[in-house]
């Protein structure tokens, strides 16, 4: 009887002591990441590994500092003893490369200066604990022109849900004068077919020359060109803005006589140009398409930026050909933070790479 009892009890006890998940065999901070840094451009004929370039890797998963290392002569860099996490490689470097002519011949004595930026969003660890990846970089000087350089949409730090100090900053990154005449600024909810607001610069689209923007010049478009610090000390002074959005149907809309006005062109819209505090698409277009009921013609778009505070998004609100990423991931409502291009006019058509979150906002100048 006693033996039978033991046969029952002992296996039961052994079962009870092994009812949890098994302890993993690997420990954190044993992960290694090997990166190969490459600049590849079939048009210009480049396919080079980049030596002596500082590479930073950043993770949003934990409160960790960026890890930094420099590529060796073969363009490789190895990060060891890393925590297991998804890392975003961040490469922003000016390099001097030999000029390659149209026949594919390198001219070592003739160098070209390029500002390179990585194109990789995140690298997730492999189960082996060693991940190897190639980081392709692109030149940010490919697409000069009139750019949306900064967007301030979060509102200042306050407890009254106040956000009326929003602004958009434009920048002319080209070598020639650009003209704002007749251009439109749009807030887009989801894809080009759903334009929420459209405000237009005065003048004749495409041909007008009344409102020039010089190369390297910033232009500030304020929701209201007002010194908002008088209301909230955490806000910003936009009384010197170049332009402000005005809706003639909004009788309470502030109108600064010293700032030029962009006017609403969408029938039925009776409010000022307000943009979402978490995520939206902002586009500037040449103005040749002024009918927004059927959406904005993609051929007229000059620049377009999608911003979103949410991490790990998978769906875009704008075509990837216009913007492949999101600016401002992690930015928060009522934080007093804006998103601005890492360099004036820096545009790779991926706002994730092009923009950084800054505080305070910098209307009319670069951070």
């Amino acid at each position: 009887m006693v033996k039978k009892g033991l046969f029952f009890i002992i296996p039961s006890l052994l079962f009870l002591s092994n009812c949890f998940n098994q302890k993993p065999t690997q420990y954190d901070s044993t992960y290694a990441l090997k990166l190969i840094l490459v600049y590849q451009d079939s048009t210009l004929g480049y396919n080079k590994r980049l030596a002596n370039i500082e590479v930073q890797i950043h993770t949003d998963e934990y409160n960790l500092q960026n890890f930094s290392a420099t590529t060796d002569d073969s363009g490789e860099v190895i990060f060891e003893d890393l925590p297991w996490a998804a890392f975003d490689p961040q490469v922003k470097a000016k390099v001097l490369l030999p000029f390659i002519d149209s026949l594919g011949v390198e001219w070592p004595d003739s160098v070209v200066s390029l500002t390179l930026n990585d194109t990789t969003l995140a690298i997730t660890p492999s189960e082996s604990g060693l991940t190897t990846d190639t980081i392709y970089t692109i030149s940010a000087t490919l697409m000069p022109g009139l750019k949306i350089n900064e967007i301030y949409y979060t509102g200042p730090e306050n407890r009254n849900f106040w956000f009326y100090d929003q602004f958009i900053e434009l920048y002319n990154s080209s070598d020639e004068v650009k003209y704002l005449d007749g251009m439109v600024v749009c807030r887009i909810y989801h894809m080009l077919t759903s334009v929420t607001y459209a405000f237009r610069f005065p003048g004749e689209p495409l041909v007008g020359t009344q409102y020039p923007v010089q190369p390297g010049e910033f232009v500030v478009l304020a929701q209201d060109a007002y010194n908002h610090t008088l209301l909230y000390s955490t806000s910003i002074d936009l009384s010197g803005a170049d332009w402000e959005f005005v809706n003639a149907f909004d009788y309470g809309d502030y109108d600064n006589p010293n700032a030029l006005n962009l006017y609403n062109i969408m029938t039925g819209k009776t409010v000022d140009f307000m943009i979402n505090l978490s995520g939206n698409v902002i586009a500037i277009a040449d103005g040749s398409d002024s009918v927004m009921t059927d959406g904005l013609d993609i051929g007229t778009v000059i620049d377009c930026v999608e911003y979103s505070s949410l991490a790990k998004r998978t769906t875009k609100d704008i075509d990837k050909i216009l913007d492949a990423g999101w600016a401002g991931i992690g930015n928060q409502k009522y934080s007093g933070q804006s998103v601005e291009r890492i360099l004036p006019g820096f545009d790779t058509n991926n706002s994730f790479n092009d923009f950084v979150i800054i505080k305070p906002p910098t209307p009319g100048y670069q951070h």
Partner: protein
Amino acid sequence: MKSGFIKKWNYAGIVLGLLLANSLWAFDNPIVREIQPRNRFNQYYNSLYDLSGNPAFYKISYPDNLDFNLVQTTNDNNSFRRQYDPRRQENYELQIHSIKHLNERATLVSAIRYNRLIQHDIPRSLEKNIYEEYFSYLDTTTGTTVYDGPQINFIYDYALISRLHLGIEVNYGVEQSLKDVYTQCEIIARNTELRPGLSYISGDRKTLIGISGNFYDAQRKYEAVKYLQDAFVRTLFGYHLFMDETPKSTNRKNDDREGRGFALQFCRQDFVIPGLKLTLTGEYNGRSDDVTAGSVSTPTARGYWVREVRRGIFDLNYSPEKAKNSLELTYEIRQTDDWAKSGEYNVVMLDNAERLNVLSIRWQSRFFKRLITNTGASFAVNSCDYQEYTIPFRYNENDNHFSAFLDVKYAVNQILSVYLRGDIAKNDLYFYWDADRATRRGSAIGLERLTTLGRLGAELEYCRTAFDEPHQYDESFGLKILYWK
């Protein structure tokens, strides 16, 4: 006359003992029950039930009926505190407890307790005690959190045959809390513990053996609302690593806990010499916590951790009949092992190994009919090896703990008695304290009076804890009012 006098002391013992039983009733049942200086009936020895938690020993351990009611409040002022501790903490408690021996075979214990716990000015932590968690929720504000919850407790001890008892114990509690500032985190928690047990008594009634198990199941849901820039939510891993949760209108954390355990007990009365009782217990308990967080609808894994505790107790109690003195020696050895893995990757983020050795001695003496003194001391060494891997951190130390107490009970007359208790404890502190050592001095004064309806008691407690560096101290006040018959 003499029996009445002794009975009164028994009642006084019952009252104070039940106060001490609170620790057994903590909302989230502890993985192992701590050995108290006094048992729940304020007798200065530990019964087999107290040492083992086997409900099949309840009738043998506590043979008298009792109806007991308690109202108590405590107020802790934490001038010196850890990073995530409240500045002040209030606790209000109502307890109703009944022990009924229904017949020769069956004993039923039923109890209900209601607690309101208010943690004032608690910085960042959304946990009741963040230092008991490895995956915790934080926000970035300081506020006051109120916890409310009832708990119920049943024990049923039934003699299957005269020498074989079957016992079942059920502890169940629900609790709700709310923080008064955004993120206005709301926590809803449910806690269930089931402890079955069997005990066997030898024919000469001097040898007892028992086996018991326990099954634990608990869930907690935290819901924090995003409101302002300064109120966003974070998950803390261990004590040095955190991640910012995605800012969204509502963030939720879920704790799904489960646990199992078993224990074996052996007790021999009149071991070697008459009046000497030997008790041996061995137990294993394990618990796991599966933590998910993020979106309300689709939370993602944050981590999984396991705690396993193995404990052995050796207890010798010398208490001959009609003797004026009794002595008890207790030795406890406890091994605690923790590990926690990342939610997203199959790697260990932290682990912890502790070995606790505790030696306690207690002496009771009746100097004359009206005066009983109890004194005791305890020395413990805790070897701790705690390691975090993600941000490398290691704490590998031996912490010493010493405590001593003196309890003097005096019967003023037939219906009134008073008692005084003083204690001192010196404890080496864990790494998350900003001090090396704390010295706690406590005192309590109480009285009990026989009335026409039953017995009424009151106790006032004061405790002061001083810290070596930087020379600050915490204070705690307590008031208890009791009624029992």
